Protein backbone atom coordinates (compact mmCIF):
# COMPACT_ATOMS: atom_id res chain seq x y z
CA UNK A 1 0.00 0.00 0.00
CA UNK A 2 1.42 3.38 -0.93
CA UNK A 3 1.66 6.17 1.63
CA UNK A 4 -1.07 8.08 -0.19
CA UNK A 5 -3.41 5.09 -0.15
CA UNK A 6 -2.63 4.38 3.48
CA UNK A 7 -3.42 7.93 4.56
CA UNK A 8 -6.60 7.89 2.52
CA UNK A 9 -7.66 4.65 4.28
CA UNK A 10 -6.81 6.21 7.64
CA UNK A 11 -9.05 9.18 7.04
CA UNK A 12 -11.88 7.18 5.52
CA UNK A 13 -12.19 4.43 8.12
CA UNK A 14 -12.38 4.64 11.89
CA UNK A 15 -11.61 0.94 12.13
CA UNK A 16 -10.71 -1.82 9.73
CA UNK A 17 -9.86 -5.50 9.85
CA UNK A 18 -8.16 -7.13 6.88
CA UNK A 19 -7.73 -10.90 6.57
CA UNK A 20 -7.99 -11.36 10.32
CA UNK A 21 -7.93 -14.93 11.63
CA UNK A 22 -7.73 -16.28 15.14
CA UNK A 23 -7.84 -19.92 16.19
CA UNK A 24 -8.94 -21.27 19.53
CA UNK A 25 -9.37 -24.89 20.49
CA UNK A 26 -13.06 -25.01 19.63
CA UNK A 27 -13.54 -21.87 17.58
CA UNK A 28 -11.94 -20.18 14.61
CA UNK A 29 -12.38 -16.66 13.31
CA UNK A 30 -11.62 -16.96 9.60
CA UNK A 31 -10.35 -14.27 7.31
CA UNK A 32 -12.52 -11.46 8.63
CA UNK A 33 -12.57 -8.37 6.44
CA UNK A 34 -14.60 -5.34 7.25
CA UNK A 35 -14.25 -1.65 7.80
CA UNK A 36 -16.24 1.03 9.58
CA UNK A 37 -16.39 4.43 7.93
CA UNK A 38 -15.77 7.49 10.06
CA UNK A 39 -19.00 9.01 11.32
CA UNK A 40 -21.02 5.87 10.55
CA UNK A 41 -22.93 3.51 12.80
CA UNK A 42 -22.04 -0.04 11.89
CA UNK A 43 -23.99 -2.98 13.21
CA UNK A 44 -22.41 -6.38 13.70
CA UNK A 45 -25.06 -9.05 13.90
CA UNK A 46 -24.51 -12.70 14.63
CA UNK A 47 -25.90 -15.54 16.70
CA UNK A 48 -24.34 -16.40 20.06
CA UNK A 49 -20.82 -17.73 19.57
CA UNK A 50 -20.55 -16.30 16.05
CA UNK A 51 -17.35 -14.37 16.77
CA UNK A 52 -18.70 -10.86 17.41
CA UNK A 53 -16.95 -10.43 20.75
CA UNK A 54 -13.70 -11.93 19.48
CA UNK A 55 -13.77 -9.55 16.51
CA UNK A 56 -14.31 -6.58 18.80
CA UNK A 57 -11.60 -7.68 21.22
CA UNK A 58 -9.19 -8.00 18.30
CA UNK A 59 -10.14 -4.49 17.21
CA UNK A 60 -9.29 -3.22 20.71
CA UNK A 61 -5.99 -5.12 20.84
CA UNK A 62 -7.24 -7.22 23.77
CA UNK A 63 -6.76 -10.34 21.65
CA UNK A 64 -4.00 -10.60 19.05
CA UNK A 65 -4.95 -12.14 15.71
CA UNK A 66 -2.93 -15.02 14.27
CA UNK A 67 -2.97 -13.31 10.88
CA UNK A 68 -4.25 -10.07 9.39
CA UNK A 69 -4.06 -6.34 9.93
CA UNK A 70 -6.12 -4.29 12.35
CA UNK A 71 -6.29 -0.51 12.23
CA UNK A 72 -8.17 1.65 14.73
CA UNK A 73 -8.39 5.43 14.44
CA UNK A 74 -5.69 5.37 11.81
CA UNK A 75 -3.19 3.41 13.88
CA UNK A 76 -2.16 -0.23 13.68
CA UNK A 77 -3.52 -1.66 16.92
CA UNK A 78 -0.66 -4.16 17.26
CA UNK A 79 1.90 -1.41 17.85
CA UNK A 80 -0.24 1.40 19.31
CA UNK A 81 -2.73 -0.43 21.50
CA UNK A 82 -2.63 2.01 24.41
CA UNK A 83 -2.63 5.24 22.39
CA UNK A 84 -5.36 3.97 20.04
CA UNK A 85 -7.53 3.23 23.07
CA UNK A 86 -7.39 6.93 24.02
CA UNK A 87 -9.89 7.47 21.20
CA UNK A 88 -11.93 4.30 21.66
CA UNK A 89 -14.71 3.61 24.12
CA UNK A 90 -15.30 -0.11 24.54
CA UNK A 91 -18.27 -1.72 26.24
CA UNK A 92 -18.73 -5.45 26.65
CA UNK A 93 -21.47 -7.34 28.39
CA UNK A 94 -18.70 -9.40 30.04
CA UNK A 95 -17.18 -6.29 31.57
CA UNK A 96 -17.61 -5.50 35.26
CA UNK A 97 -16.81 -2.57 37.52
CA UNK A 98 -15.32 -2.87 41.01
CA UNK A 99 -18.23 -3.88 43.22
CA UNK A 100 -17.19 -2.26 46.53
CA UNK A 101 -16.48 1.13 44.93
CA UNK A 102 -18.91 3.90 43.98
CA UNK A 103 -19.77 5.27 40.55
CA UNK A 104 -17.98 8.48 41.57
CA UNK A 105 -14.79 6.55 42.37
CA UNK A 106 -14.90 4.92 38.93
CA UNK A 107 -15.44 8.35 37.33
CA UNK A 108 -12.34 9.69 39.09
CA UNK A 109 -10.31 6.64 38.08
CA UNK A 110 -11.27 6.88 34.40
CA UNK A 111 -10.82 10.67 34.39
CA UNK A 112 -7.21 10.22 35.56
CA UNK A 113 -6.46 8.30 32.34
CA UNK A 114 -8.32 10.56 29.88
CA UNK A 115 -7.44 14.20 29.27
CA UNK A 116 -10.62 14.42 27.17
CA UNK A 117 -12.92 13.60 30.12
CA UNK A 118 -15.90 15.96 30.15
CA UNK A 119 -17.12 16.66 33.71
CA UNK A 120 -20.23 18.55 32.63
CA UNK A 121 -21.31 15.80 30.28
CA UNK A 122 -20.66 13.19 32.99
CA UNK A 123 -22.94 15.11 35.37
CA UNK A 124 -25.61 15.37 32.67
CA UNK A 125 -25.39 11.63 32.03
CA UNK A 126 -25.67 10.86 35.74
CA UNK A 127 -28.89 12.84 35.76
CA UNK A 128 -30.25 11.44 32.49
CA UNK A 129 -29.53 7.85 33.49
CA UNK A 130 -30.88 8.36 37.00
CA UNK A 131 -27.61 7.32 38.64
CA UNK A 132 -26.29 8.43 42.02
CA UNK A 133 -22.58 9.23 42.13
CA UNK A 134 -22.14 7.91 45.68
CA UNK A 135 -23.85 4.58 45.00
CA UNK A 136 -21.61 1.54 45.09
CA UNK A 137 -21.56 -0.80 42.10
CA UNK A 138 -22.58 -3.71 44.34
CA UNK A 139 -26.04 -2.19 44.78
CA UNK A 140 -26.69 -1.47 41.10
CA UNK A 141 -29.20 -3.36 39.00
CA UNK A 142 -28.09 -4.80 35.66
CA UNK A 143 -29.57 -1.81 33.82
CA UNK A 144 -27.89 0.69 36.15
CA UNK A 145 -24.58 -1.14 35.78
CA UNK A 146 -24.78 -0.89 31.99
CA UNK A 147 -25.70 2.80 32.24
CA UNK A 148 -22.81 3.45 34.65
CA UNK A 149 -20.42 1.77 32.27
CA UNK A 150 -21.74 3.76 29.31
CA UNK A 151 -21.40 6.95 31.33
CA UNK A 152 -17.73 6.12 31.96
CA UNK A 153 -17.27 5.56 28.23
CA UNK A 154 -19.28 8.47 26.83
CA UNK A 155 -17.93 11.13 29.22
CA UNK A 156 -14.45 10.67 27.83
CA UNK A 157 -15.79 11.67 24.39
CA UNK A 158 -14.32 8.79 22.38
CA UNK A 159 -14.14 9.11 18.60
CA UNK A 160 -14.93 5.43 18.13
CA UNK A 161 -17.45 3.55 20.27
CA UNK A 162 -17.17 -0.23 20.20
CA UNK A 163 -20.24 -1.64 21.92
CA UNK A 164 -20.54 -5.37 22.38
CA UNK A 165 -24.17 -6.27 23.12
CA UNK A 166 -24.89 -3.17 25.24
CA UNK A 167 -28.64 -3.73 25.42
CA UNK A 168 -28.45 -7.40 26.36
CA UNK A 169 -30.84 -8.19 29.22
CA UNK A 170 -32.16 -4.65 29.58
CA UNK A 171 -35.80 -3.75 30.14
CA UNK A 172 -37.47 -1.76 27.31
CA UNK A 173 -37.18 1.58 29.16
CA UNK A 174 -33.47 1.19 29.91
CA UNK A 175 -32.91 0.03 26.34
CA UNK A 176 -34.71 3.10 25.02
CA UNK A 177 -32.65 5.42 27.25
CA UNK A 178 -29.39 3.89 26.07
CA UNK A 179 -30.31 3.86 22.39
CA UNK A 180 -31.51 7.47 22.66
CA UNK A 181 -28.18 8.48 24.16
CA UNK A 182 -26.35 6.70 21.36
CA UNK A 183 -28.54 8.53 18.83
CA UNK A 184 -27.38 11.78 20.43
CA UNK A 185 -23.77 10.68 20.13
CA UNK A 186 -24.07 10.00 16.41
CA UNK A 187 -25.43 13.50 15.80
CA UNK A 188 -21.76 14.42 15.93
CA UNK A 189 -20.48 13.37 12.50
CA UNK A 190 -16.94 12.80 13.67
CA UNK A 191 -17.95 9.98 15.96
CA UNK A 192 -18.26 6.39 14.89
CA UNK A 193 -20.08 3.48 16.47
CA UNK A 194 -19.54 -0.23 15.98
CA UNK A 195 -22.44 -1.98 17.64
CA UNK A 196 -22.86 -5.72 18.02
CA UNK A 197 -25.96 -7.61 18.99
CA UNK A 198 -27.98 -10.69 18.25
CA UNK A 199 -31.04 -8.47 18.66
CA UNK A 200 -31.64 -7.19 15.16
CA UNK A 201 -34.26 -4.61 16.20
CA UNK A 202 -31.72 -2.62 18.23
CA UNK A 203 -29.18 -2.68 15.43
CA UNK A 204 -31.79 -1.80 12.82
CA UNK A 205 -32.78 1.27 14.82
CA UNK A 206 -29.39 2.95 14.78
CA UNK A 207 -27.14 1.35 12.14
CA UNK A 208 -26.19 2.71 8.73
CA UNK A 209 -24.38 -0.43 7.65
CA UNK A 210 -24.79 -4.00 8.78
CA UNK A 211 -22.37 -6.91 8.80
CA UNK A 212 -23.60 -10.42 9.47
CA UNK A 213 -21.23 -12.88 11.06
CA UNK A 214 -21.71 -16.58 11.72
CA UNK A 215 -19.36 -19.34 12.87
CA UNK A 216 -16.35 -17.06 12.67
CA UNK A 217 -16.99 -15.82 9.12
CA UNK A 218 -18.40 -12.60 7.73
CA UNK A 219 -21.30 -13.83 5.62
CA UNK A 220 -22.77 -10.55 4.36
CA UNK A 221 -22.09 -6.86 4.71
CA UNK A 222 -24.02 -3.97 3.23
CA UNK A 223 -25.95 -0.80 3.76
CA UNK A 224 -28.95 -1.34 6.06
CA UNK A 225 -31.43 0.13 3.57
CA UNK A 226 -30.01 -2.04 0.78
CA UNK A 227 -30.77 -5.14 2.86
CA UNK A 228 -34.30 -3.98 3.60
CA UNK A 229 -34.98 -2.84 0.03
CA UNK A 230 -33.67 -5.93 -1.73
CA UNK A 231 -34.90 -8.79 0.42
CA UNK A 232 -38.46 -10.12 0.03
CA UNK A 233 -40.50 -12.93 1.49
CA UNK A 234 -42.61 -14.70 -1.14
CA UNK A 235 -45.53 -16.85 -0.06
CA UNK A 236 -46.96 -19.14 -2.75
CA UNK A 237 -49.19 -22.13 -3.38
CA UNK A 238 -47.84 -24.86 -5.62
CA UNK A 239 -49.15 -28.22 -6.83
CA UNK A 240 -47.93 -31.39 -5.11
CA UNK A 241 -44.48 -32.42 -6.26
CA UNK A 242 -43.61 -28.88 -7.34
CA UNK A 243 -39.91 -28.27 -7.63
CA UNK A 244 -38.71 -24.74 -7.11
CA UNK A 245 -36.86 -23.54 -10.22
CA UNK A 246 -33.21 -22.59 -9.77
CA UNK A 247 -33.22 -18.83 -9.26
CA UNK A 248 -30.15 -17.08 -7.93
CA UNK A 249 -30.68 -15.72 -4.44
CA UNK A 250 -33.99 -17.50 -3.85
CA UNK A 251 -34.24 -20.03 -1.04
CA UNK A 252 -37.11 -22.07 0.42
CA UNK A 253 -37.54 -21.00 4.02
CA UNK A 254 -40.40 -23.37 4.86
CA UNK A 255 -42.88 -25.66 3.15
CA UNK A 256 -46.12 -27.16 4.38
CA UNK A 257 -48.13 -29.24 1.90
CA UNK A 258 -48.84 -26.86 -0.98
CA UNK A 259 -47.80 -23.72 0.91
CA UNK A 260 -44.21 -22.56 0.38
CA UNK A 261 -42.42 -19.57 1.85
CA UNK A 262 -39.37 -18.37 -0.05
CA UNK A 263 -36.87 -15.62 0.53
CA UNK A 264 -35.23 -13.61 -2.23
CA UNK A 265 -32.04 -11.67 -1.60
CA UNK A 266 -32.24 -9.59 -4.79
CA UNK A 267 -35.95 -9.38 -5.44
CA UNK A 268 -37.26 -8.15 -8.80
CA UNK A 269 -40.50 -8.75 -10.69
CA UNK A 270 -38.83 -11.30 -12.94
CA UNK A 271 -38.52 -13.65 -9.97
CA UNK A 272 -42.31 -13.65 -9.50
CA UNK A 273 -42.81 -14.21 -13.23
CA UNK A 274 -40.36 -17.11 -13.19
CA UNK A 275 -42.10 -18.73 -10.23
CA UNK A 276 -45.53 -18.32 -11.81
CA UNK A 277 -44.25 -19.90 -15.00
CA UNK A 278 -43.15 -22.93 -12.98
CA UNK A 279 -46.79 -23.49 -11.86
CA UNK A 280 -46.83 -21.65 -8.55
CA UNK A 281 -49.50 -19.15 -7.53
CA UNK A 282 -47.98 -16.26 -5.64
CA UNK A 283 -50.07 -15.16 -2.67
CA UNK A 284 -47.94 -12.40 -1.16
CA UNK A 285 -44.61 -10.66 -1.66
CA UNK A 286 -43.60 -8.78 1.48
CA UNK A 287 -40.56 -6.90 2.70
CA UNK A 288 -38.55 -8.82 5.28
CA UNK A 289 -37.52 -7.62 8.71
CA UNK A 290 -33.83 -7.50 9.48
CA UNK A 291 -34.31 -10.48 11.79
CA UNK A 292 -35.80 -12.56 8.97
CA UNK A 293 -32.99 -11.49 6.65
CA UNK A 294 -30.44 -12.36 9.33
CA UNK A 295 -31.87 -15.86 9.87
CA UNK A 296 -32.05 -16.48 6.13
CA UNK A 297 -28.47 -15.31 5.55
CA UNK A 298 -27.19 -17.48 8.40
CA UNK A 299 -29.03 -20.56 7.13
CA UNK A 300 -27.84 -19.95 3.56
CA UNK A 301 -24.26 -19.63 4.79
CA UNK A 302 -24.48 -22.84 6.79
CA UNK A 303 -26.02 -24.73 3.85
CA UNK A 304 -23.28 -23.46 1.55
CA UNK A 305 -20.62 -24.62 4.02
CA UNK A 306 -22.20 -28.07 4.32
CA UNK A 307 -22.40 -28.53 0.57
Amino acid at each position, binding site marked *: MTTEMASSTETEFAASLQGVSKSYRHFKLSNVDFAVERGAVAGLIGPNGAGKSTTMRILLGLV*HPDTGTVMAMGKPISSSEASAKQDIGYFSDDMRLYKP*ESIGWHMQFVRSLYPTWDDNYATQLLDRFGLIEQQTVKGLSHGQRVKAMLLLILARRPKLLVLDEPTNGLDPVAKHEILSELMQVVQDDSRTILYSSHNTQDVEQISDTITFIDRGRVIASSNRDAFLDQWRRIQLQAPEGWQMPEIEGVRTESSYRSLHVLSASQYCDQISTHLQQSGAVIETVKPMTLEEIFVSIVMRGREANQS
Partner: protein
Amino acid sequence: MNLKAIQILFLKDLFLSRRQLFAYFVGGLAASALACTPNSTVSFIGFILVITVAIAAGIHLIGTLMLAESTDQTRMFVMSLPVSLLDYSMGKIAVVMTTYLIPWTSMLACLVIATMTMGKQGSVVVLPAIFLFLLCSFLLQLVTAVISESTGWTICVMVGGNICLNVFLMKLFQDPEVAEVVKGNIVQWPVMVLQMIAIELLIICLALVVAILFQFRRRDLV
Protein backbone atom coordinates in the same frame (compact mmCIF):
# COMPACT_ATOMS: atom_id res chain seq x y z
CA MET B 1 5.76 1.41 28.69
CA ASN B 2 3.64 4.26 30.07
CA LEU B 3 4.85 5.12 33.58
CA LYS B 4 1.88 7.41 34.30
CA ALA B 5 -0.58 4.64 33.43
CA ILE B 6 1.38 2.15 35.58
CA GLN B 7 1.30 4.62 38.47
CA ILE B 8 -2.47 5.12 38.14
CA LEU B 9 -3.11 1.36 38.01
CA PHE B 10 -0.77 0.85 40.97
CA LEU B 11 -2.55 3.46 43.09
CA LYS B 12 -5.95 2.06 42.08
CA ASP B 13 -4.99 -1.43 43.28
CA LEU B 14 -3.36 -0.06 46.42
CA PHE B 15 -6.62 1.71 47.22
CA LEU B 16 -8.69 -1.39 46.44
CA SER B 17 -6.53 -3.51 48.77
CA ARG B 18 -6.47 -0.94 51.58
CA ARG B 19 -8.60 -3.01 53.98
CA GLN B 20 -6.59 -6.22 53.56
CA LEU B 21 -3.36 -4.25 53.74
CA PHE B 22 -4.41 -2.61 57.00
CA ALA B 23 -5.59 -5.92 58.46
CA TYR B 24 -2.33 -7.71 57.63
CA PHE B 25 -0.23 -4.78 58.80
CA VAL B 26 -1.99 -4.65 62.19
CA GLY B 27 -2.17 -8.45 62.45
CA GLY B 28 1.53 -8.71 61.63
CA LEU B 29 2.49 -6.17 64.27
CA ALA B 30 0.30 -7.89 66.87
CA ALA B 31 1.81 -11.29 66.06
CA SER B 32 5.32 -9.82 66.21
CA ALA B 33 4.56 -8.28 69.60
CA LEU B 34 3.43 -11.69 70.90
CA ALA B 35 6.56 -13.32 69.46
CA CYS B 36 8.70 -10.89 71.45
CA THR B 37 7.17 -11.61 74.87
CA PRO B 38 9.44 -13.22 77.51
CA ASN B 39 7.03 -16.15 78.03
CA SER B 40 8.32 -18.93 75.76
CA THR B 41 4.87 -20.45 75.04
CA VAL B 42 3.32 -17.10 74.10
CA SER B 43 6.45 -16.22 72.13
CA PHE B 44 6.21 -19.50 70.20
CA ILE B 45 2.52 -18.88 69.45
CA GLY B 46 3.46 -15.36 68.32
CA PHE B 47 6.16 -16.74 66.00
CA ILE B 48 3.66 -19.22 64.48
CA LEU B 49 1.21 -16.33 64.03
CA VAL B 50 3.89 -14.23 62.28
CA ILE B 51 4.44 -17.03 59.77
CA THR B 52 0.68 -17.52 59.41
CA VAL B 53 0.12 -13.81 58.72
CA ALA B 54 2.91 -13.84 56.10
CA ILE B 55 1.47 -16.90 54.33
CA ALA B 56 -2.15 -15.71 54.54
CA ALA B 57 -1.25 -12.20 53.33
CA GLY B 58 0.55 -13.67 50.31
CA ILE B 59 -2.21 -15.95 49.09
CA HIS B 60 -4.95 -13.42 49.91
CA LEU B 61 -3.29 -10.52 48.08
CA ILE B 62 -2.47 -12.65 45.03
CA GLY B 63 -6.07 -13.88 45.06
CA THR B 64 -7.75 -10.50 45.38
CA LEU B 65 -5.38 -8.36 43.33
CA MET B 66 -4.36 -10.74 40.60
CA LEU B 67 -6.65 -13.74 40.20
CA ALA B 68 -9.94 -12.04 41.11
CA GLU B 69 -9.62 -9.50 38.25
CA SER B 70 -10.07 -12.38 35.86
CA THR B 71 -12.92 -14.13 37.68
CA ASP B 72 -14.72 -10.87 38.60
CA GLN B 73 -14.39 -9.70 34.97
CA THR B 74 -12.95 -6.35 36.04
CA ARG B 75 -9.80 -6.95 33.97
CA MET B 76 -11.72 -6.34 30.77
CA PHE B 77 -12.77 -2.93 32.13
CA VAL B 78 -9.17 -2.00 32.95
CA MET B 79 -7.85 -3.33 29.64
CA SER B 80 -10.43 -1.27 27.74
CA LEU B 81 -8.67 1.84 29.08
CA PRO B 82 -5.57 3.31 27.38
CA VAL B 83 -3.11 0.89 28.98
CA SER B 84 -1.00 -1.76 27.31
CA LEU B 85 -0.64 -5.33 28.48
CA LEU B 86 2.85 -4.47 29.71
CA ASP B 87 1.58 -1.44 31.69
CA TYR B 88 -1.11 -3.61 33.25
CA SER B 89 1.30 -6.42 34.11
CA MET B 90 3.99 -4.15 35.55
CA GLY B 91 1.41 -2.32 37.65
CA LYS B 92 0.02 -5.62 38.94
CA ILE B 93 3.36 -7.17 39.86
CA ALA B 94 4.46 -3.93 41.52
CA VAL B 95 1.32 -3.55 43.61
CA VAL B 96 1.17 -7.20 44.70
CA MET B 97 4.83 -7.01 45.73
CA THR B 98 4.32 -3.70 47.58
CA THR B 99 1.24 -4.79 49.45
CA TYR B 100 2.99 -7.97 50.55
CA LEU B 101 6.23 -6.22 51.47
CA ILE B 102 4.48 -3.72 53.78
CA PRO B 103 3.40 -6.30 56.42
CA TRP B 104 6.48 -8.44 55.66
CA THR B 105 8.90 -5.56 56.33
CA SER B 106 7.02 -4.33 59.37
CA MET B 107 7.01 -7.80 60.95
CA LEU B 108 10.71 -8.34 60.20
CA ALA B 109 11.64 -4.90 61.50
CA CYS B 110 9.56 -5.37 64.64
CA LEU B 111 11.14 -8.75 65.36
CA VAL B 112 14.69 -7.54 64.68
CA ILE B 113 14.26 -4.51 66.95
CA ALA B 114 12.65 -6.56 69.72
CA THR B 115 15.28 -9.31 69.49
CA MET B 116 18.11 -6.79 69.62
CA THR B 117 16.63 -4.89 72.57
CA MET B 118 15.70 -7.98 74.57
CA GLY B 119 19.25 -9.28 74.76
CA LYS B 120 18.78 -12.14 72.29
CA GLN B 121 21.04 -10.60 69.66
CA GLY B 122 22.33 -13.96 68.49
CA SER B 123 18.95 -15.16 67.24
CA VAL B 124 18.56 -12.12 64.96
CA VAL B 125 20.64 -13.86 62.26
CA VAL B 126 17.95 -16.47 61.53
CA LEU B 127 15.24 -13.86 60.97
CA PRO B 128 16.40 -12.67 57.49
CA ALA B 129 16.76 -16.29 56.35
CA ILE B 130 13.24 -17.19 57.56
CA PHE B 131 11.63 -14.04 56.15
CA LEU B 132 13.42 -14.38 52.82
CA PHE B 133 12.13 -17.95 52.66
CA LEU B 134 8.59 -16.62 53.13
CA LEU B 135 9.23 -14.02 50.41
CA CYS B 136 10.55 -16.76 48.08
CA SER B 137 7.45 -18.84 48.68
CA PHE B 138 5.24 -15.80 48.00
CA LEU B 139 7.07 -14.99 44.76
CA LEU B 140 6.76 -18.57 43.54
CA GLN B 141 3.01 -18.31 44.16
CA LEU B 142 3.00 -15.00 42.28
CA VAL B 143 4.80 -16.55 39.29
CA THR B 144 2.35 -19.47 39.33
CA ALA B 145 -0.60 -17.07 39.44
CA VAL B 146 0.84 -15.01 36.56
CA ILE B 147 1.52 -18.05 34.38
CA SER B 148 -1.46 -20.26 35.19
CA GLU B 149 -4.08 -17.68 36.31
CA SER B 150 -5.36 -20.57 38.39
CA THR B 151 -6.32 -20.38 42.06
CA GLY B 152 -5.90 -24.15 42.32
CA TRP B 153 -2.30 -24.19 41.08
CA THR B 154 -1.41 -21.18 43.21
CA ILE B 155 -2.77 -22.91 46.32
CA CYS B 156 -0.79 -26.05 45.38
CA VAL B 157 2.41 -23.98 45.30
CA MET B 158 1.47 -22.39 48.64
CA VAL B 159 0.98 -25.83 50.22
CA GLY B 160 4.31 -26.97 48.75
CA GLY B 161 5.94 -23.83 50.17
CA ASN B 162 4.50 -24.52 53.63
CA ILE B 163 5.82 -28.09 53.62
CA CYS B 164 9.24 -26.84 52.53
CA LEU B 165 9.12 -24.18 55.27
CA ASN B 166 8.87 -26.88 57.95
CA VAL B 167 11.80 -28.78 56.45
CA PHE B 168 13.71 -25.50 56.14
CA LEU B 169 13.14 -24.54 59.81
CA MET B 170 14.08 -28.04 60.96
CA LYS B 171 17.34 -28.02 58.96
CA LEU B 172 18.14 -24.45 60.07
CA PHE B 173 17.79 -25.06 63.78
CA GLN B 174 19.42 -28.53 63.60
CA ASP B 175 22.64 -26.99 62.33
CA PRO B 176 25.05 -26.96 65.33
CA GLU B 177 26.63 -23.63 64.35
CA VAL B 178 23.21 -21.95 63.99
CA ALA B 179 22.00 -23.45 67.29
CA GLU B 180 25.08 -22.09 69.03
CA VAL B 181 24.73 -18.57 67.57
CA VAL B 182 21.00 -18.37 68.38
CA LYS B 183 21.67 -19.05 72.07
CA GLY B 184 24.39 -16.38 72.29
CA ASN B 185 24.28 -12.60 72.52
CA ILE B 186 26.67 -11.84 69.68
CA VAL B 187 25.55 -11.36 66.07
CA GLN B 188 27.57 -13.87 64.03
CA TRP B 189 26.54 -15.10 60.58
CA PRO B 190 26.82 -18.90 60.30
CA VAL B 191 27.87 -20.22 56.87
CA MET B 192 24.62 -22.15 56.50
CA VAL B 193 22.51 -19.00 57.05
CA LEU B 194 24.58 -17.03 54.52
CA GLN B 195 24.25 -19.85 51.97
CA MET B 196 20.51 -20.00 52.52
CA ILE B 197 20.16 -16.23 52.14
CA ALA B 198 22.18 -16.33 48.91
CA ILE B 199 19.99 -19.11 47.47
CA GLU B 200 16.80 -17.29 48.54
CA LEU B 201 17.94 -14.02 46.93
CA LEU B 202 18.72 -15.91 43.74
CA ILE B 203 15.26 -17.53 43.71
CA ILE B 204 13.62 -14.13 44.36
CA CYS B 205 15.46 -12.54 41.41
CA LEU B 206 14.69 -15.51 39.13
CA ALA B 207 11.01 -15.52 40.12
CA LEU B 208 10.69 -11.80 39.38
CA VAL B 209 12.44 -12.14 36.02
CA VAL B 210 10.23 -15.10 35.04
CA ALA B 211 7.03 -13.26 36.09
CA ILE B 212 7.95 -10.11 34.15
CA LEU B 213 9.24 -11.99 31.08
CA PHE B 214 6.15 -14.16 30.94
CA GLN B 215 3.86 -11.16 31.07
CA PHE B 216 6.02 -9.35 28.53
CA ARG B 217 5.68 -12.21 26.03
CA ARG B 218 1.98 -12.71 26.62
CA ARG B 219 -0.27 -11.76 23.72
CA ASP B 220 -3.84 -12.08 25.02
CA LEU B 221 -5.06 -11.19 28.46
CA VAL B 222 -8.81 -11.57 28.09
